[in-house]
């Protein structure tokens, strides 16, 4: 088979202004221009988006599940980063 070889692209859609782009899925396209258009046709057929990003899947660097503990656990024991950690006398407002 000498055909396709169209690379895979990840698609991110902003559903409306004020929200972040979120991952919608992936698709194949020969280049960025067509990837954007294919994404528009595939992922916003029902008016689901106002803006689209496409990224070559190969360009994404992901954290590894093996590194889950060193990556994410240390953040779990720093409760002083959260507002609920602090005790404020009753009646004090705007805090």
């Amino acid at each position, binding site marked *: 088979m000498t*055909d396709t070889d*169209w690379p895979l692209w990840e698609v991110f859609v902003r559903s409306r202004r004020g929200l972040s782009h979120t991952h919608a899925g992936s698709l194949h396209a020969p*280049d960025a221009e067509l990837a954007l258009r294919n994404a528009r046709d595939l992922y916003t057929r029902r008016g689901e988006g106002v803006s689209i990003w496409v990224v070559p899947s190969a360009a994404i660097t992901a954290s590894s599940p093996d590194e889950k503990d060193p990556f994410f656990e240390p953040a779990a024991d720093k409760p002083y980063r959260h507002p609920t950690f602090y005790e404020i006398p009753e009646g004090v407002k705007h805090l």
Partner: protein
Amino acid sequence: MATAAAHRTAGAPAYGAPHADPDGDARQRAFDAAVAADERVEPRDWMPDAYRATLVRQIAQHAHSEIIGMQPEANWITRAPSLRRKAILMAKVQDEAGHGLYLYSAAETLGVSRDELLDKLHSGRQKYSSIFNYPTLTWADVGAIGWLVDGAAITNQVPLCRCSYGPYARAMVRVCKEESFHQRQGYELLLALSRGTSEQHAMAQDAVDRWWWPSLMMFGPPDDASQHSAQSMAWKIKRHSNDELRQRFVDICVPQAESLGLTLPDPDLKWNEEHGRHDFGAIDWTEFWDVLKGNGPCNEQRLTQRRRAHDEGAWVREAAAAHAAKHAAKHTGKHTGPTGVEQA
């Protein structure tokens, strides 16, 4: 297929094949615990090879069904009897292409390429749902497919939205949301026929007569003969048994058929007060296995059309790839990154 393999390796940071497994037992335990706790398995997590293989087989078969399933309905796009119906049918067939794409995309997170899967479809090494090997002989068949075939599919698919594999579950959420109009349009189409002229009513009844039994077969063989069911249930890929889902479907359809003014072609179909469900007649599993083996009325036709579309499209895909290669240098650096000014 060297290129597809190369591409997979290039994509490894995102999806990756399973890592070397120095401590298999611990990983197996972690996997089992995650599934038991109803957590989702995600692409880069370790998973048993058999789980991966089962998912690839099932998601691919599901994706193939969507794109082969375009054919029997597309058969009527050019003959739709009103412009309203034509628009609805085109949108529905388009959705099926879209659903195929969502599902291939979910399968690709498991380390297989779409090319590879299509190749297996074209060479008959992977299956698609047998229901699409039946022909659409009249306009009413479009309605019967919407009501019964999509109805059965939805009954099957809704539980898949909670499937243990994250990308498959997410694809199914999207599919189910979009498919809700598919069944309703089929029902509405049949209702218009049933309440129409006597010829139209007869057309609707004939379609239901032909599609009822094949729809019941869509839930797969009875539980005691289903080779994959038990393991899939344990892995929470599947949430209900074939027979449970089939029963649910029958119970849903009976009152719907009454409202349509159409008869389901089963003399044994009756309410069972004691069990609180409908009893129904025996399914002809010989026909099921025969169609599955490739002897259905349209197996050859469906695959031939699919292969032809793929083969005749090869020069187009090659052209676009060649164009992209020629112009790759020119495009580099042309686009503003996501945090900068956005492109249109």
